[in-house]
């Protein structure tokens, strides 16, 4: 099915120009979708690793001109090879495409291109001329023809995308290299401003984000990835320490359209913030009496202090957004009422219900049987959920399970265990969290699962478990746990906390609302536009994905705000080119773990200061200290600034 005429990508050459259809080779390293978007065929692609041509009508010479012009446009202008070198390349290529080229230009382009690659400071200049050099090698004839015949080339139609491995991996696509560079320069306020262009939750994400960016950090190939998460926290905290209010960006003129948002969690707050920037100060309806949603309910204070969430919510309400606390949709006000009163609705509820363990006794209503999220919420509100109990067993291997055991220690529970049916290696919880819990002397019981809750007089007395062994990998790629017959044993305990997963409670959605709900009890929403089956209702975050990471909820909610804006303006609701290109880049693969980066390793990441286990297990005070100024700046200087520029040629 390969319709690729030519491809050169990261050293892999596929040249079908002189081959017939049957023998045509297929590039393995570069997989290009057929269309950029419906009706717009993807005729060619040029990027940091080379180029690929699908449509023979594409002029490689003009593609090179457009690509170098794009490089010149994003060059930060600081180092000369990139700043001036690419300018000279562009001027030369402009001249050639206008039919004024000279033969010696080719050698000059090659020489200068190589110089820029070798001498530039960051990846913009280090990769910018690479596709040109490849084109000069493999399409030399085409260049010569244009020069010889003084051909005036028509300009192609192109789409440009600037991204980076870290940016691309981040569901919210924060401009990570820029905000890190600002920290390295000491421009901390400016760094925060850059962060806030993409998220209004810098202090929250700076503490609890699962940081997909860090596993896509090119520095990981050299020595250790940057501590991107804590650099973000640093920028947020610095402003907080200096009592600086979040900067209020310029707002679009206020619209008379009204938007309601259900849930003041990461999704709801993010959607509200970006809607407010666009002129819609929305009203948020929140069931609880404080902001943060799952981040407030499910994340204990020692990881995410309450004030941080409140401060971030303040940054949202400062733009005119109203949060109506203690207002539950479906109880205090119905969704249909909202539909009539508001022009658009965003559903951003979290996955706050617990998944059942499907074991005997869990629905019996025993004292001491408390679902994980409920347990954490009660602790977060300052109460011991079950003061009579001293021994705790938590079932599950995710972050909520870890939060439950660590919080149990902090409210003075003596004997705290965690049961997980696989081994430590398969645990979905953050490795750092597991390590910290081990340091705090939580007892981990691997390869066992509960089978029955044992109670006496309506009170939990213990949990019967069965040993497991690992079998073949399942759909998730992890080895499936299989019960070992006859291996049942009893763990005595006063409290059993199931924390094996959460689900979304959509009981407030009724059939008449016109919203399709999936079998998994999530809102059925378009993954590109976040539109539900009801034209004026959008949804993103856990309510659509089921329990998922905070940064995806925040990122998607920002995109949903854009879609709501389109809908309210009567424009067609479709995914923006920027996000489309970002996904295209992801498909192409922005981070190549095999790349030889060519610099010495050994510049290790800065270590955060942490409260010692003995102290921290007794307190809800934040366990991790943020970076001090000097450490943050040193850490920021480790960034390799791996910007990637991709150029898509659109066919006719």
């Amino acid at each position, binding site marked *: 099915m390969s319709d690729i005429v030519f491809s050169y990508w990261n050293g892999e050459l596929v040249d079908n120009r002189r081959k017939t259809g049957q023998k045509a080779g297929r590039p393995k390293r570069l997989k290009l979708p057929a269309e950029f978007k419906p009706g717009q065929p993807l005729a060619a692609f040029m990027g940091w690793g080379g180029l690929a041509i699908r449509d023979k009508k594409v002029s490689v010479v003009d593609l090179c001109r457009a690509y170098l012009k794009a490089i*010149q*446009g*994003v*060059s*930060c*202008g*600081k*180092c*000369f*090879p990139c*700043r*001036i*070198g*690419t*300018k*000279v390349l562009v*001027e030369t290529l402009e001249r050639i495409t206008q039919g004024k080229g000279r033969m010696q230009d080719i050698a*000059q382009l090659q020489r*200068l291109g190589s*110089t820029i690659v*070798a*001498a*530039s*400071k960051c990846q913009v200049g280090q990769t910018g001329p690479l596709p040109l050099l490849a084109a000069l090698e493999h399409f030399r004839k085409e260049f010569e023809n244009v020069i010889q015949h003084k051909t005036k080339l028509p300009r192609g139609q192109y789409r440009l995308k600037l991204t980076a491995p870290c940016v691309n991996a981040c569901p919210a696509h924060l401009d990570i290299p820029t905000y890190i560079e600002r920290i*390295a*320069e*000491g*421009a*901390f306020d400016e760094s925060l401003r850059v962060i806030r262009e993409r998220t209004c939750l810098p202090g929250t994400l700076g503490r609890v984000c699962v940081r997909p960016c860090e596993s896509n950090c090119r520095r990981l190939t050299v020595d250790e990835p940057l501590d991107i998460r804590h650099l973000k926290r640093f920028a947020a905290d610095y402003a907080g*320490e*200096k*009592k600086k209010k979040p900067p209020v960006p310029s707002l679009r003129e206020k619209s008379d359209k009204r938007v309601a948002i259900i849930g003041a969690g990461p999704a709801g707050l993010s959607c509200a913030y970006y809607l407010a920037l666009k002129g819609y100060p929305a009203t948020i309806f929140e069931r609880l009496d404080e902001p943060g949603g799952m981040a407030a309910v499910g994340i204990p204070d020692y990881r995410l202090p309450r004030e941080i969430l409140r401060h971030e919510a303040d940054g949202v309400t400062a733009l005119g957004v109203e949060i109506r606390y203690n207002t539950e949709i479906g109880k205090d006000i119905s969704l249909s009422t909202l539909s009539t009163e508001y022009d658009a609705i965003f559903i951003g509820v979290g996955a706050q219900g617990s998944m059942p363990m499907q074991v005997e006794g869990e629905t019996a209503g025993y004292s001491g049987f408390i679902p994980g999220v409920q347990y954490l919420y009660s602790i977060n509100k300052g109460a011991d959920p079950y003061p009579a109990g001293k021994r705790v067993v938590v079932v599950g291997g995710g972050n909520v399970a870890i939060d439950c055991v660590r919080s149990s220690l902090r409210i003075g529970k003596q004997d705290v265990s965690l049961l997980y049916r696989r081994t430590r290696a398969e645990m979905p919880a953050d490795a750092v969290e597991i390590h910290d819990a081990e340091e705090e002397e939580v007892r981990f019981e691997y390869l066992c699962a509960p089978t029955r809750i044992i109670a006496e007089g309506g009170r939990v007395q213990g949990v019967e478990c069965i040993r497991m062994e690992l079998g073949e990998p399942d759909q998730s790629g992890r080895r499936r746990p299989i019960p070992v017959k006859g291996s049942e044993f009893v763990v005595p305990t006063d409290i059993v906390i199931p924390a094996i997963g959460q689900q979304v409670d959509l009981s407030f959605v009724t059939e008449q609302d016109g919203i399709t709900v999936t079998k998994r009890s999530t809102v059925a929403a378009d993954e590109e536009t976040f539109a539900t089956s009801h034209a004026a209702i959008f949804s993103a975050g856990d309510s659509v994905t089921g329990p998922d990471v905070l940064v995806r909820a925040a990122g998607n909610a920002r995109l949903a705000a854009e879609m709501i804006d389109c809908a309210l303006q009567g424009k067609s609701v479709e995914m923006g080119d920027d996000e489309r290109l970002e996904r295209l880049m992801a498909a192409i693969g922005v981070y190549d773990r095999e790349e*030889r*980066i*060519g*610099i*010495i390793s*050994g*510049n290790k990441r800065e270590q955060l200061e942490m409260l010692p286990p003995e102290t921290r297990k007794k307190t809800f005070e934040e366990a991790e200290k943020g970076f*001090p*100024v*000097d*450490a943050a*700046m*040193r850490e920021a*200087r480790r960034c390799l600034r791996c910007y990637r520029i991709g150029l898509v040629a659109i066919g006719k």
Partner: protein
Amino acid sequence: MSDAHIKYTADGGAHIKYMTDGGAIINLTIDGKAIQAHAGQTILEAARANGIAIPTLCYHPRLLPIGSCRLCVVEIEGAERPMTACTTPAQEGIVVRTQTERLNNMRRAALQLILTYHPLDCPQCDAGGACELQDLVVAFGIDAQPYHAVKKSQGQREFATPLIRQWPDRCVMCLRCIRADHEIVRTHAIDLIGTGIETEVGITDRDACISCGECLQVCPVGALTEHVSRVKARPWQSQQVTTTCFYCSLGCQMELTCFENTIVRVQAPAHSGANQGSLCRRGIFGYDFIHHPHRVTAPMIKGAGSWKRVPWSEALAHVAAMINKVILESGPDAIGGLISPRSTNEEVFLFQRFMREVVGTHSIDSTGRLCLDPYRQALRAVVGRDYLPPTLDALVQSDCIVVAGGDLDANNNIIAANRVREALWRTGARLIVLHPWRGRLAKEADCWFPLLPGDEPRWALGMIHLLLEHHHEALAAAQKIKGFPELKETTREFTLERTAKEIGCAPDLLTEAAKLLAQAKRPAFVCSPPLGQVHAGVDQITALANLALLCGALTGSGSGGFHWVGPQSNMVGTIEMGASPLVLPGYQPADTKGLSVVEMMQAAATGRLKALFIVGEDPLITLPRRLVEKGLASLELLVLQDMFLSETAERAHVFLPSLSFAESDGTFTNCEGRVQRLRRALQPPADLRWSGEVWADIASFMDKEFPLTSPAAVFAEITQHNPLYTGMSFEPTTPQWRGDGREVPLDKAAFTAFSAGRGEHDKEYPFALSLEGIFENHLIGSAQQQRAKGLAHCSQSYLAINAEEAQTIGLVANGRARLITPWGETVALIKTSPEIRRDALIYVLSFYDTAASQLLGPEFNPQTMDPAYAGIPARVEKV
């Protein structure tokens, strides 16, 4: 808590390497040479420290490295790509090559690319002959460049300040100017604008520019040029003379470039003085008053209301005769002397000898004493001896800094403010600022307390209470200090709630500040007038000094210290040389006490003082005007020695012209106790004479013995007679500090009682007014003269008021308002800010302002004889 990681460089100044301190020694090889470096040092730093040259253009030792110019690339074994030496940390065992064919080609290519756009206007470029790009092109033997590009010529334009021109075509994008602006002064007036070839250094916030010239100083080429002097000269045509700035007490080291006996440029030598390469706008641009046409170049005697130029002999004989007459008729105590704290140590020493030995009176004083004495007395009581703070270099190592008194930025003590900033963001120090206005520094503070002048003692009491209550374990050492039980008792009632209520701030803020101070291992205090210049000024400083002692800022060798930054260059030296009615040189006690300047004015008004000899002071504009007017009007003889006809000159009988700092030899003692040289850079106008000679001649006309000596000889005499200056050299090869005082033994220190009272506001005068910067005018001319360009730009006084209050009164920003105190009134330019305490007014004075002295009241602090310059009852009205 130790000084161990501050390395003292060859010139004795503590030169701090932020990335390198305390780093373990590592071994590496550069160009086949085995060398050692500190962990954290970059390859470039390690190479240069070992005499290995690597070319650079964007690198500047005072700025963070950015690796942009690509000239410092080196090859490291194991790395395929060359790496920039300026940004790559040195590592154990690496093998580095700095000179290879490949590197040479890369460096040449980078330079050739720069030259593609660089104009060839070297012959008319100010930097010609002193240009780093020229040097590099010569060094690499580049005689042609292969690339061609379309150039747009942009010519020159005004930069963020009219005192600097920008030539964008010449810019080599080293970003040093932007980095200096962002890293040293943190004004963010300029930034990089655009992308690709369109990128340029642009002005992003013209109002933020403070004309400090930091950008100009670091420009390696002629992209930024000085726009004060019309005359320019090539380096080989001019002379460079290193001297000490004569403006404020920081004593910045500066290099004057002189051509044909004119200053054409001022720069700061690197790694020298408290300024370490920086200057403020006065230092770098405020030199052109020296060449002002109004400068007086001959002695004058006033007859029938007008000045008459006379020969020196006639003027001095007249002065001598008049002094003799007064002594004969009324005794020597009918004569007083007043000398400017911008005079050299040698001049002050000679003048006090003249007054004490030739005239025979202890009535000698200086406004420098008014600025320093409250601090000196308070610290003396608390530490038990004369106190000398640690250097400002050490301040950078502090982890928590309390700034109180004047606004360091508004008062042009930029260098001190910059050192605080350096500590803030390079080492993460925390900052507590006490000032009614949230100025530039306060905006970077963790805790800003908008206190009214006079509330500092209660703030300190509240802080001490909190520290003792919640953080006593951190203060164990202080509990052994004398007076601790009394301190504890005194502060018992100053609970969080009470303090917060009385000083009008949030309780949380006090709690946070106490926590910051308790956690600090190296707290420091940086204070400046008008702190101490209220009615209970000594108490104000004593209160803060008690707090400093409690949290360990005063004792121990690594302590952050209690710094005092004043408005005049030789504030410290002037008092130490004996320009005080209370003490002799070196603070040696005098057997009888003379009159302070305030008492002299009072005595003149009542006829007890008949004659006054003023050197460089202008009391009409720095002391309560009505008092001074009355005093001066009653004098039989007023001799004034100055460069210009100042306000006070109108009342004088004899005028003696004096030398400018650039024409003088001598020494200043700065606020750190650094004793630094003034060097003669210019030949004085014909017939102008050094003050020492003038006084010697007067003495001889009076038939008194007074040896005619040179500044060097006087300095030698000082080292003999002033115990603080024993063993010092007039031509030191390394920095020298006046001795004594830095070690504060715990057993001598004592918590000292102070009063915390403050008067209530009078309804008629609802504001508390502070005058900041009132002592800055000496020796630069009068309000009437047309201003020299450089100084003119630095001189705009304004009254800062809360924006809402201004609105209520009906005032508009940048408009004018009438400022009224019980003693006088003036019209002032208004600046408004929402971040000024509502009942506070700050009158920031700059050069040439005369009217402010009318606002001062006649009451004085009996301990220091200081008029109140802060906490003055005031009101504001529409004009």
